[in-house]
């Protein structure tokens, strides 16, 4: 985004105010009023409906209360810390008052103190008293800078509060004291507190005092049998806590301006990042740690087995089968891929001579390079087998396929007629649940006995193509003619590009000619071939139809499962990339246009670099999503026919076979294998960003 700074150096207050005007103070269009009206109607309708439907009522009440309460706390915290910089006294008083109110709520709300009870007035009494007393102390501390006065305020205030609380506690809560627990907790927590302060390079006294207070509190109240003590034990349990905290407050100093600024920033960091971390910690970090631990135990989580679960994954023939690695050198995609790579090499040398770069984003070397690499990877992945290899294959194909497709659609559809329709249709698979998607593709891939009609589109096409290419009727002739026309067109384009632009522009039509030509030769059955499509030739030369069992015929059944994922995931890539493209400033593109750049140059040189980090996001997310994919495999094959992937294997082991150790180990493997990719991608994005 340095570009933007450079391009508009006068960005300043003016920018911001324009921004506000444009973004926030826009005039509402009639359509927006309409939307607003519909929204209001929907809300009203829901209200009326919720009157009759208890489900909506309870849900919306829960959600609204949760949102309003946490939102209130969040905004309140922000407003509170807004005061730090310039209104320190106010901030201090409010902060202390809030703490006091919470203490009041806890004591009073839980009916621990005298005077609490049901009803509004008893309920608010405790919190109010707490807020008032604590707030007063906070204000007094903020107003006084003299250490002795501060100590006096801290000690005096806390003693008074401690005394009042301990006297107010109801007799059923009087604690019976356990001296050992008090001493042990106080000492241990004081030591911890001191240690923490030391680590934070602060005087350890403060930490010791707070730790001791906490320890005393837990030891005296937590260890006690409530109701067995007397008013004296209540005093013993409460007063020292108050005094220790009071001392801690008393010996502290008021913050100077720099410290207040630091506090402001630090508190904002917590307020902004904290809620997310809370969720992440509870729902992801703790389970992850638990999984790591379980992966070292046996299947019933009873005995320690070390890394056995991990080694069993790698020694299992189903996970990694390198036996037939030599097959890759004879596989068709591998050989074609090598051929295409040779073309890339030749083109690269040529480009080097003209532009100085063999490979550059958007130059003609790129297409054959990528296609060749993909084909070679196919050769490798079909020769090496096993769960782990399958996962790599998935990552390569789905990540590349869906990102490239998504990008292509986002680009081609951008600001063209029918953009919305096209994008909506491509997006549609995202809206269909995985159950739905698997049903769809079962229909698409379905194979039926050749004596009956095909119900799957692909087999119908494949068998139909076979019939066409081995037949000799009018349709066969028509297709032959069309193929000839396409080939002629491609040759013209090749010649045109060769004469006008040189080798670079001729690569795409050249490769297309190779592909279409190959298909044409197969189709008409020239040079000893028989035809193309779903048929087989019996030894006696009789030709009959043959279907492809897409889901079961390995190893390419893996690919057909990946197609489903690409079908779904392209919508994702398209939406994200499209949103990013829309955010590329128009003046960049206009500037390039004025300079005479072509559409493709604008794309490769302007748009693509602008959305590079977003592509990083899409690629990273897709890799992660692919590593975790299990639904498709589970529904289509459940890992049979050599289509097992790590995530489905994990699901089977952990949930179906209740082999918890191995399931956890597989989960950790998924996590660990994605980690380096994630790390490098994020770092690169951060550097670029």
């Amino acid at each position, binding site marked *: 985004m340095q570009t933007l700074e450079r391009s508009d150096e006068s960005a300043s207050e003016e920018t911001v105010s324009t921004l506000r005007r444009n973004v926030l103070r826009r005039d509402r269009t009639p359509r927006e009023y309409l939307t607003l009206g519909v929204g209001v109607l929907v809300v009203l309708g829901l209200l009326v409906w919720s009157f009759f439907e208890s489900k909506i009522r309870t849900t919306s009440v829960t959600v609204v209360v949760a949102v309003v309460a946490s939102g209130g706390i969040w905004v309140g915290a922000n407003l*509170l810390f807004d005061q730090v910089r310039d209104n320190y006294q106010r901030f201090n008083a409010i902060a202390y008052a809030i703490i006091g109110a*919470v203490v009041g709520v806890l004591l009073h709300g839980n009916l621990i103190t005298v005077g609490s009870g049901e009803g509004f007035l008893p309920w608010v009494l405790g919190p109010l008293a707490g807020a008032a007393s604590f707030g007063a102390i906070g204000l007094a501390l903020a107003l006084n800078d003299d250490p002795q006065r501060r100590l006096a305020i801290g000690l005096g205030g806390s003693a008074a509060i401690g005394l009042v609380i301990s006297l107010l506690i109801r007799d059923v809560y009087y604690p019976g004291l356990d001296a050992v627990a008090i001493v042990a907790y106080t000492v241990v927590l004081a030591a911890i507190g001191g240690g923490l302060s030391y680590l934070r390079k602060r005087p350890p006294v403060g930490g010791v005092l707070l730790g001791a207070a*906490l320890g005393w509190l837990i030891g005296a109240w937590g260890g006690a049998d409530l109701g067995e003590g007397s008013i004296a034990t209540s005093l013993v349990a409460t007063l020292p806590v108050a005094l220790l905290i009071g001392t*801690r407050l008393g010996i502290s100093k008021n913050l100077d301006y720099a410290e207040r600024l630091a506090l402001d920033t630090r508190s904002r960091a917590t307020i902004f990042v904290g809620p997310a971390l809370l969720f992440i910690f509870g729902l992801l970090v703790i389970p992850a740690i638990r999984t790591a631990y379980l992966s070292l135990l046996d299947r019933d989580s009873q005995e320690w087995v070390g890394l056995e679960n991990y080694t069993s994954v790698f020694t299992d023939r189903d996970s990694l089968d390198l036996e037939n690695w030599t097959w890759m050198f004879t596989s068709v995609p591998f050989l074609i891929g090598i051929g295409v790579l040779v073309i890339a090499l030749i083109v690269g040398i040529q480009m080097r001579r003209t532009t100085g770069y063999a490979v550059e984003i958007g130059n003609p070397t790129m297409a054959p390079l990528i296609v060749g690499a993909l084909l070679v990877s196919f050769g490798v992945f079909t020769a090496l087998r096993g769960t782990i290899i399958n996962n790599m294959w998935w990552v390569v194909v789905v990540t590349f396929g869906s990102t490239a497709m998504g990008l292509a659609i986002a680009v081609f559809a951008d600001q063209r007629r029918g953009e919305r329709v096209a994008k909506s249709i491509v997006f549609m698979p995202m809206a269909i649940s995985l159950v739905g998607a698997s049903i769809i593709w079962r229909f698409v891939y379905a194979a039926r006995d050749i004596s009956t009609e095909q119900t799957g589109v692909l087999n119908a096409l494949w068998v139909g193509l076979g019939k066409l290419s081995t037949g000799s009727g009018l349709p066969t002739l028509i297709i032959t003619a069309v193929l000839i026309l396409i080939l002629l067109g491609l040759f013209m384009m090749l010649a045109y590009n060769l004469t006008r632009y040189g080798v670079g522009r001729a690569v795409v039509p050249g490769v297309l000619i190779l592909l279409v030509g190959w298909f044409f030769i197969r189709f008409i059955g020239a040079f000893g071939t028989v035809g193309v499509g779903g048929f087989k030739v019996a030894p006696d030369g009789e030709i009959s139809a043959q279907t492809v069992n897409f889901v079961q015929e390995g190893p390419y059944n893996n690919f057909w499962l990946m197609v489903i994922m690409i079908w779904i995931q392209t919508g994702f890539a398209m939406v994200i990339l499209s949103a990013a493209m829309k955010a590329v400033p128009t003046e960049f593109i206009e500037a390039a246009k004025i300079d005479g750049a072509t559409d493709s140059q604008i794309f490769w040189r302007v748009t693509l670099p602008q959305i590079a980090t977003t592509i990083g996001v899409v690629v990273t997310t897709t890799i992660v999503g692919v590593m975790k994919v299990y639904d498709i495999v589970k529904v289509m094959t459940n890992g049979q026919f050599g289509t097992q992937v790590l995530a489905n294997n994990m699901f089977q082991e952990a949930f179906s076979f209740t082999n918890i150790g191995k399931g956890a180990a597989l989960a950790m493997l998924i996590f660990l294998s994605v980690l380096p990719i994630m790390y490098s991608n994020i770092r690169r994005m951060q550097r670029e960003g």
Partner: protein
Amino acid sequence: MSKSRWRKLLALLMVFGLIAAACGDDDDEATDASEEAGDDGEGDGDGDGESAAASGDFGGAVVTITGPERTDGDIASINDALNQHFEPLNLTVEYTGDADWEANINTQVEGGNPPDISFFPQPGKLADFARAGSVVELTDGVNAAIDENWAEGYQLDGNVDGVQFGVPAKTDLKSIVWYQPGRFEADGYAVPETLDEFKALVDEMAAAGGAKPLCVGIESGQATGWPFTDWIEDLMLRLHGPEVYDQWISNELPFDSPEVQEAMQTVVDLWTDENVFASGGTISATSFFDNAQPLVDGQCYMHRQANFFAGFFPEGTTFADDSDPDTVSVFYFPDVSGDRPVLTAGTLAAAFNEDPATMAVLEYIATSDYAENRQRILTEFLGGGLSGYLSAAQGQDPSVYQPLEQEFLSILADAEISRFDGSDLMPADVGAGTFWSEGTSLVNGDTDVATAAQRIQESWPS
């Protein structure tokens, strides 16, 4: 939401706010407050009111049941059969059919949120849960009801180490072959009485060159391969008898022993291209339920499949109706030595708590009255025809069953030996894992019998 829950919510929000403030503030004493807040979560009893009901009133208790059966008819018949009985007793039963029961029940138990009762299609899993202490022992009342209504063979499926945990709730009969008597008659074939006759019949039909003798399909989505395991089990029972069968499912007899390999080889020999019509092109690509249409279309003569297969025939098919020449019927999958063993499956209900309401529901499920009601409601729901449900409980009114279903029951009653589906008794790694997948590979011709058997044996958890 109860009042106490509101209070807890408020307290929790306070604590969140406090923590946020505490982390921002330099040092303060917020942390101890948060721990005090926790205290109020304790001691709040669960006021659900599932009080004991000796008087025959359960005080509005709700008993939740899950199970793998989940068509609309199943849900309706289980719910209605139970609720009709328990409504006067002020008890509500909520049955949920679960598409992913095998995995979910594990999660629910581990997460501490199991239903009150679950229907187990796999006695092996029930035994695991019983040994882990997840399901509870049945009370004497339930045991008495089982004794009264079920023959000992069925009781044993729910018996783990001498203690009864499961209540038989449904019986599937697997040792039957579907065919069209009219077509057999027209083409001059007779129902085989022994396994050898069966094989001879298959050869004869194949040699005749018309329709194929057998329809076979083992595709079943994520459970692809299970019809193969059924064949092996049936053949194990027939070729080697129940004792060897029992040793086999407990792996005393290893999977790669000659006996098992013999059964597997028999299946492989039977399932040749000449003998089998597979509507999906290959056996492993053909869904087992896609075989109903070819059977009535005359593309094959026979299809060995359990009683619930009735539900897959096209509309308008009649069953064991002598007036219809195209009617579909079954014959007993013939045996070798005349001891008429049958392979069964079914569900067993087991409880996750000892609540009186739960036990009362189990007690009722054990009765023939429940079976009868469920069958009646299901048949009504489906508007006649075969329900797909079957129960071997004794003392049911036979009139709730259709003629063909009564024949199923008589095959069950005639059987001297009955054994539960072996793959449901094996550990899931095998019974729902390699037995399926290696079986599929074998059928596809990707491996041979010896290799497949050896791999299955290797996967048996030690």
